[in-house]
């Protein structure tokens, strides 16, 4: 039992002040954890005491202090770094974590252990401790005395320690020994009421444990003995002190006491000890070294083997582990998300299974070729994936179904019926397009028309109506976007067609059916699988990303096809800020006139503003090939390549830009080539600077220079260049965005916000700026807001895959895992 005393109260061999010494590994561990040597003992007493009132399992009494300590440590670690590393202990966090630890019913631990084990436990401690004693004293304590976690006053006067020691010592011997004399009054006065209550409670608890075999009354006698020696009058103390520790240790005790989860984790204890050892070093590298060493074998230093030894011994002895705590917490956190995900997946799979079935059926019926087989397989794959995007796809299936429903029943109305409605709605006003009622009415119409159809379709219709209602449709999302989405999904969802053809009484071949297959085959056959990064989604954006890089991907269903005014329409839509529609119009134009450089350029600009640099680059390259010296094209190419981090291409384009300007052509020619490729950037920058020196009031020049500096990560220079350009051209929204982006990439996200705001003031539908705002808020750590901005951006361009992904990231950081699945089509509010 002396080992226990030593353990708890600090070996006599060491300085009594902190009660901890290198051999008192557990004590020092708990010291650090709980702070303060004197308190340690009280708190330790409290641990088994938590069990005490409910009828004490004495056997586990000695085991729990360390395990509870460990638990608390692990628990503390589960939430934050405990007092071991950086001396911050978020006790509230630890508490709540401890609460979450609590799994089993309270009385569980009571059944554990029996009186028989009481004798065994002390022996264990003896063994551990005597093995310990032989170890050399380290030069320093393993763990420096840490400030007590909860703002308790500093370590209690050392003079208390002997009293506690005596108290416990008395437990070891058969008869109570007297304390070394009553505590001097002045010291007793130092004990605050809270301290006294704690002492009383904990000593009571401890005593009950220690003297369990001698009965409660004996224990109480010991306690009163102690208290009197400490000049604490129990009668004057409050009955209960609300103490944050109580719950913690209680829970920790319980959790530790459940031998049910008996998973030996020597590494845990070892890690903790090692971490504790490292705390002595007080530096993170040392800490990591310690852990590393722990894993790879103890080093030769004095302190470490000590901790390692007892820890591993202890761990070997103690099957119950805090490990459940950590994973339990994580699991609990993960549970809601996973539960949802499972449900969703189950539903999806079920629905998709049926879809796949039908696809198979239709495949059998219609002897298609490879496209059909692929479509069935695709449906299968879709069914297999848990992708929440599936919901969007199904949602969009409904859209396409519905529109085809219209098609079916209004035979003469061409496929464009829906998109025409969309275009009409778009023309009707840029703001506040009441998509929801429109969608709802479509759904309603469809529902009516589809009345004779089977119940399953009805479900889809309902779901669609719900889905549309859910979709956040404010000033961002316009009919055009929805239409584009629809078109996009149609491109990917041939399975839908299969089902429809199977079910619809009127087999109407929509226009472009064959074309769609071709396109689709091209897309999916085209090495989309190689690039694992590109467009895992199933939509148009996915199709776009899945295409070979640099190749422009057209949206499939384009209402503007064949419209001679497409370019004009495109320009108007662009001015109005309805980017997706504008893109479609321009696409129609360039399909009709592939050499229309202007149209390609506008198309590229639209995509850049929609934050789709790949498409932007593809379009711009076409523009470039049609018109190699167009400076705007070259500048835009430089910008987009910079965004894509393709340094060489950006540089070459910007250089070409310079060459294309008559004013600077000579300068560029004169500058010649850079000495080698790594210097190319700086060479070109010098070139530009020379140019800007000669023509300081050319804003474009400053813009280009800014872009170059951004490329070279000289953000300060870039900011300066953009600011100069802005002075000359303050109304250029894209310039404000560039300034903001440069500031953000330079970790000046706060300032970036102002710049983005200016950009948005100039152009409210500037999707790229919204996205960048989301990124900046995420950089600033304001994840919920960041997610909100991503949603706004997605409202403008729902096809932006990476923005969906950023949204997921921000949600993950915000901790809103439950919204992950609902990411599609819902706003965060």
């Amino acid at each position, binding site marked *: 039992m002396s080992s226990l005393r030593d353990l708890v109260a600090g070996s006599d061999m060491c300085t009594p002040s902190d009660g901890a010494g290198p051999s008192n590994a557990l004590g020092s561990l708990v010291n650090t954890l709980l702070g303060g040597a004197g308190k340690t003992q009280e708190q330790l007493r409290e641990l088994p005491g938590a069990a005490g009132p409910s009828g004490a399992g004495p056997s586990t009494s000695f085991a729990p202090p360390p395990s509870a300590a460990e638990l608390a440590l692990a628990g503390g670690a589960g939430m934050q770094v405990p007092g071991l590393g950086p001396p911050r202990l978020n006790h509230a966090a630890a508490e709540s974590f401890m609460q979450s630890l609590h799994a089993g019913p309270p009385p569980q631990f009571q059944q554990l252990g029996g009186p028989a084990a009481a004798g065994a436990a002390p022996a264990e401690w003896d063994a551990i401790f005597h093995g310990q004693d032989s170890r050399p004293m380290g030069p320093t304590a393993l763990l420096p005395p840490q400030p007590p976690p909860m703002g308790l006053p500093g370590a209690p006067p050392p003079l208390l320690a002997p009293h506690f020691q005596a108290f416990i010592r008395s437990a070891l011997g058969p008869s109570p020994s007297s304390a070394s004399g009553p505590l001097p009054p002045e010291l007793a006065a130092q004990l605050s009421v809270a301290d006294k209550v704690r002492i009383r409670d904990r000593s009571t608890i401890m005593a009950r444990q220690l003297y369990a075999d001698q009965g409660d009354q004996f224990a109480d006698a010991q306690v009163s003995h102690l208290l009197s020696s400490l000049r604490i009058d129990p009668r004057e103390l409050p009955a209960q002190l609300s103490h944050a520790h109580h719950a913690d240790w209680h829970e920790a005790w319980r959790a530790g006491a459940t031998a049910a989860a008996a998973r030996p984790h020597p590494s845990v204890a070892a890690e903790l000890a090692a971490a504790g050892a490292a705390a002595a070093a007080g530096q993170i590298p040392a800490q990591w*070294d310690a852990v590393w060493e722990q894993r790879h074998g103890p080093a030769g230093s004095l302190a470490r083997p000590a901790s390692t030894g007892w820890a591993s011994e202890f761990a070997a002895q103690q099957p119950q582990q805090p490990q459940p705590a950590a994973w339990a917490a994580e699991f609990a956190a993960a549970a809601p998300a996973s539960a949802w995900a499972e449900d969703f997946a189950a539903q999806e799979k079920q629905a998709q299974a049926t879809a796949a079935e039908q696809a198979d059926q239709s495949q059998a019926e219609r002897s298609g070729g490879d496209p059909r087989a692929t479509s069935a397989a695709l449906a299968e794959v879709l069914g297999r994936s848990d992708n929440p995007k599936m919901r969007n796809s199904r949602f969009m299936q409904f859209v396409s179904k519905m529109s085809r429903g219209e098609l079916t029943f209004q035979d003469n109305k061409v496929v464009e019926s829906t998109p025409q409605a969309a275009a009409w709605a778009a023309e009707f006003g840029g703001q506040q397009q009441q998509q929801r009622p429109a969608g709802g009415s479509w759904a309603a119409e469809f529902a009516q028309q589809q009345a004779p159809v089977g119940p399953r379709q009805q479900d889809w219709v309902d779901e669609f109506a719900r889905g549309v209602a859910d979709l956040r449709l404010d000033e961002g999302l316009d009919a055009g976007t929805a239409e584009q989405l629809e078109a996009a999904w149609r491109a990917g969802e041939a399975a839908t067609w299969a089902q429809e053809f199977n079910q619809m009484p009127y087999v109407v071949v929509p226009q472009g059916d064959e074309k769609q297959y071709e396109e689709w085959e091209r897309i999916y056959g085209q090495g989309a699988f190689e690039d694992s990064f590109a467009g895992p989604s199933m939509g148009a954006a996915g199709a776009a990303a899945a295409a070979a890089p640099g190749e422009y991907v057209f949206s499939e269903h384009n209402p503007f096809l064949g419209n001679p005014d497409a370019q004009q329409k495109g320009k108007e839509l662009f001015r109005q800020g309805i980017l997706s529609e504008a893109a479609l119009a321009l696409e129609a134009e360039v399909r009709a006139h592939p050499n229309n450089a202007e149209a390609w350029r506008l198309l590229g600009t639209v995509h850049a503003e929609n934050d789709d640099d790949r498409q932007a680059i593809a379009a711009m390259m076409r523009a470039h090939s049609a018109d190699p010296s167009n400076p705007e094209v070259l500048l835009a190419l430089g910008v987009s390549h910079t965004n894509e981090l*393709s340094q060489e291409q950006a540089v070459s384009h910007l250089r070409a830009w310079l060459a294309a300007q008559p004013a600077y052509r000579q300068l560029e020619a004169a500058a010649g080539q850079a000495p080698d490729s790594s210097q190319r950037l700086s060479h070109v920058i010098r070139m530009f600077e020379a140019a800007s020196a000669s023509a300081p009031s050319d804003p474009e020049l400053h813009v280009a220079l800014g872009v170059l500096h951004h490329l070279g990560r000289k953000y300060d220079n870039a900011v300066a260049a953009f600011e100069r350009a802005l002075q000359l051209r303050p109304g250029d929204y894209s310039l404000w965005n560039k300034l903001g982006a440069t500031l953000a990439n330079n970790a000046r996200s706060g300032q970036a916000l102002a710049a983005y705001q200016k950009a948005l003031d100039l152009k409210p539908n500037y999707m790229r700026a919204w996205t960048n705002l989301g990124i900046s808020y995420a950089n600033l750590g304001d994840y919920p807001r960041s997610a909100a901005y991503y949603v706004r951006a997605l409202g403008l361009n729902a096809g932006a895959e990476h923005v969906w992904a950023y949204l*997921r990231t921000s949600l993950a950081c915000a901790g809103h895992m439950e919204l992950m699945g609902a990411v599609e089509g819902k706003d965060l509010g």
Partner: protein
Amino acid sequence: MSSFSSPLLVRAATAAAANKASTPLLQQLGKSLEAEGPALANRIKGVVVFKIDDEEWTLDLTEGTQGQLYPGPPKSGDKPDLTLTISDAHFAQLVMGKLNPQNAFLMRKLKINGSMGMAMKLQPILDAAQPQSKL
């Protein structure tokens, strides 16, 4: 339809990847290797494997190379110098700076196998994975 499984399996894997918060970050990391790869490789000088929620990604930053990031285990078949096991959400938090690597490790959110020294140089890799604002 098992006959279509081979190309589509990859697609299914990427479809699963779409679900994850970590995907854009890994993409960004891959992209940034173009610009920063050699510098990172000279710092890290090794192969790091990320195991994010059952998906394995290899970041090959052997000294003197450009640096590569690809899904799956290391192509050379060697044991990676450092293996990090972490959940998807925590990886996102790690990259976005909400969680720092040391804390993550101590809280057992991040499991490390292999070279501790390399693990301590993790930060630049994580920084490279942060989303970038677009000009």
